C-alpha cells in the first residue's frame, strides 16, 4: 500500500540484528565482552527512546541523562529503601520519568525550534546536582548500592548471561512497539511536525500536543533503560549523568541513522563497542570517537542505516539489469 519496501527492509535489519545479538554471547569469550553487550542493548533502548523526540519529531533533547538518572534512581530507591519488587519499582520509575517529561515538555514544547535543547541541558544539569547534593534521599556521592536483579516466575536473573537475554527480550519488545508507533498515524504526524510545524498547524494538527506525546514516549523508554542499567550494575551514582552522557546518546542516534529504529539500535551498539575498543588510547579515545562521528555526518548523513539502504538499492539494481531494460523498452508504463 504505502512504502512497504522500506517497512520490510527495516524489519529485516532488526531481525538480523537481534539474531546476531542472540548468538553473540557464544561468540565472545570474556565476561568483559558480555558486559559490553549488556551495555550496548541498554543504550539501544535509550536511543530508541531518543529517536521519538529527536529522530522522528526533530526536537533536540540534550537532557537524556536527566531522564535516565531519574529513572535509575527511582528504581534504585524504591527497591532498596521501600523494598519493592523490581517490576513494581519499574512501574514507579516509568510513572516518575513520565511525570517529569510532561512537566518539562508542556511549557517548553509550546515554543518552536531550539528551546527544548536549552531547557533540557539545564534539566540534565539540575538533575545531576540534585542527585549529588540531596544526600539524605539519594545517598549523595556514594550513590545507591545493592540494587536487586529482577526475577520472573521464580527465576532470578543473577548471572550476566541470564540478564543479557532478559535485556534482549525487552529490547525486542520495545523495538517492535517503537516500529508500530513509527508506522502509525502518530509516527506520520511526528514526521510532519519535524518537516514543517506551520504547515502542520494549517491542516489542524496540534503540534505542541504531538511534540509532548513524542517527549513522553522518550520518557517511558528512558525510564526503562535507566532502570535496567541500575539493576544491571546493582549500583548507581550521580557522576555518570553528565551532559557528555546525554551527548553520547545523540551521537549514537546520528551515527545509526536519525528517525530509524534499527538505526538507533545499530548506532548504540557500534558506539558503545567503539568506546570500549578505544580504551587503550586512554584520554585520546575521545579524539578518535569524535572524528568517527564527524566523518559519519560528513560522508553519510543518513547514518549506518542510510548507508545500508543505499547498498541494498545498488545491489538490487545490479541484480536486475535485464528487468530494468525491459521496463525501459515498455516505456515504464505505470
Amino acid at each position, binding site marked *: *500500500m*504505502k*512504502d512497504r519496501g522500506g517497512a520490510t527492509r527495516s524489519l529485516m535489519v532488526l531481525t538480523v540484528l537481534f539474531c546476531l545479538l542472540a548468538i553473540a554471547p557464544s561468540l565472545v569469550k570474556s565476561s568483559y565482552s558480555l558486559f559490553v553487550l549488556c551495555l550496548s542493548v541498554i543504550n539501544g533502548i535509550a536511543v530508541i527512546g531518543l529517536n521519538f523526540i529527536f529522530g522522528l519529531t526533530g526536537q533536540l533533547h540534550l537532557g537524556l541523562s536527566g531522564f535516565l538518572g531519574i529513572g535509575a534512581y527511582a528504581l534504585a530507591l524504591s527497591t532498596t529503601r521501600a523494598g519493592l519488587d523490581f517490576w513494581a519499582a519499574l512501574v514507579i520509575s516509568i510513572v516518575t520519568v513520565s511525570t517529569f517529561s510532561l512537566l518539562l515538555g508542556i511549557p517548553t514544547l509550546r515554543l518552536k525550534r531550539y528551546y527544548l535543547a536549552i531547557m533540557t541541558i539545564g534539566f540534565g544539569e539540575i538533575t545531576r546536582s540534585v542527585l549529588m547534593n540531596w544526600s539524605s534521599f539519594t545517598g549523595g556521592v556514594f550513590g545507591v548500592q545493592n540494587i536487586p536483579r529482577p526475577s520472573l516466575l521464580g527465576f532470578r536473573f543473577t548471572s550476566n548471561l541470564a540478564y543479557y537475554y532478559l535485556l534482549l527480550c525487552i529490547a525486542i519488545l520495545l523495538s517492535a*512497539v517503537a516500529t*508500530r*508507533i513509527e508506522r*502509525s*498515524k*502518530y509516527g*506520520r*504526524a511526528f*514526521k*510532519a511536525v*519535524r*518537516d*514543517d510545524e*506551520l*504547515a*502542520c*498547524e*494549517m*491542516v*489542524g*494538527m*496540534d*503540534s505542541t500536543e504531538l511534540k509532548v*506525546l513524542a517527549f513522553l514516549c522518550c520518557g517511558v523508554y528512558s525510564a526503562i533503560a535507566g532502570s535496567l542499567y541500575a539493576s544491571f550494575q546493582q549500583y548507581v551514582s550521580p557522576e555518570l549523568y553528565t551532559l557528555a552522557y546525554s551527548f553520547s546518546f545523540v551521537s549514537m542516534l546520528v551515527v545509526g541513522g536519525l*528517525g530509524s529504529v534499527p538505526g538507533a539500535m545499530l548506532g548504540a551498539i557500534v558506539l558503545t563497542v567503539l568506546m570500549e575498543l578505544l580504551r587503550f588510547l586512554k584520554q585520546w579515545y575521545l579524539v578518535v570517537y569524535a572524528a568517527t562521528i564527524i566523518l559519519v555526518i560528513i560522508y553519510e548523513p543518513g547514518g549506518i542505516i542510510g548507508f545500508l539502504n543505499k547498498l541494498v538499492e545498488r545491489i538490487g539494481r545490479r541484480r536486475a539489469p535485464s528487468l530494468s531494460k525491459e521496463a525501459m523498452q515498455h516505456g515504464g508504463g*505505470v
Partner: protein
Amino acid sequence: MGPILEIKGVSKSFEGVLALNNLDVEVSEGEIRAIIGPNGSGKTTLINVITGVFPATSGRIIFKGQDITGLSPFRIARKGITRTFQNLRLFPSLTVLEHVLAAQHHRSRVGFWGSVFSTRSGRAEEEGMVSRAQEILEFVGLKGRADMPGLGLPYGQRRLLEIARALATGPELLLLDEPAAGLSSEEIQALERLLREIRSRGITVILVEHRMMLVMNVADRITVLNYGEKIAEGKPAEIKNNPEVIQAYLGRAYAAAGS
C-alpha cells in the same frame, strides 16, 4: 447566501508600518472571492491574519458568526479554514499520499493504542483515511502519484498537492495564496476548472492571485487592496473598468488615458 467570513476593521502593523489599515471585507458562502492588488498591498498579510499565523493589531474576524480573532492556527483550521502557501510548504519526508493522510490526522478518532496496535477500529479508520485520500488525489489530478515523495513531483503538481492537503482537512473556507504562480498556461486552465469544482462542492474560496486572466475568469467578486486599504470591490467586469484600480496598478497617467 449570508457571509461566511466577516473581516471587521482589521489593522495589522509591523513595527509601525501599516500592512492592513482598518479593513472591512465580507465573503459570502459558496463564492470564489479574488483578492488582488499591487505587490506589498497586504494580500498575504490578510491571509496570515485570517489563519492566525500572526494576530491582527486591531479588529475582529468572524467566521460563521463566531469570533475567531486571536485563535491559534490549528484551532482556526479545525473550525474549517485552511490555506495553501505562496512559497510551497510541503513535508520533505512524506509521500504524496502521506501528505493527504496527515491532513486528516486531527479528524481521526481512534486513540494512540488503537492506532499503534492496529486494532480493528484502528485499521478501519486508516483504510477509510486512505480511500478518502485517494479520492482527493484523483479530484485534484494526482491519481497514480500516491507513493512518490511529495518533493519528487514537478513544480505544478506540488501546487496541486498543497491544494489536496488543504482539502483533506474538510474545509468550508479555502484560502489560496497565488496558486497559479509558476504554472504553465495549460496548468492554469486545469487550475481554473479545479477551482470551479471546489466551489461546486460547497467550499468557499478566497483567491489571492496575480494572473489576471485566471482571476477574471473564475472570481465571483473581486476585492482590490492597495497599501493595506480596500480601494474597490465588485464583479470582475466592474473592477476591470474601475479607474482607481487602473491607477493603482498602472499609475495615474494610464488612468487618465483610460477615462
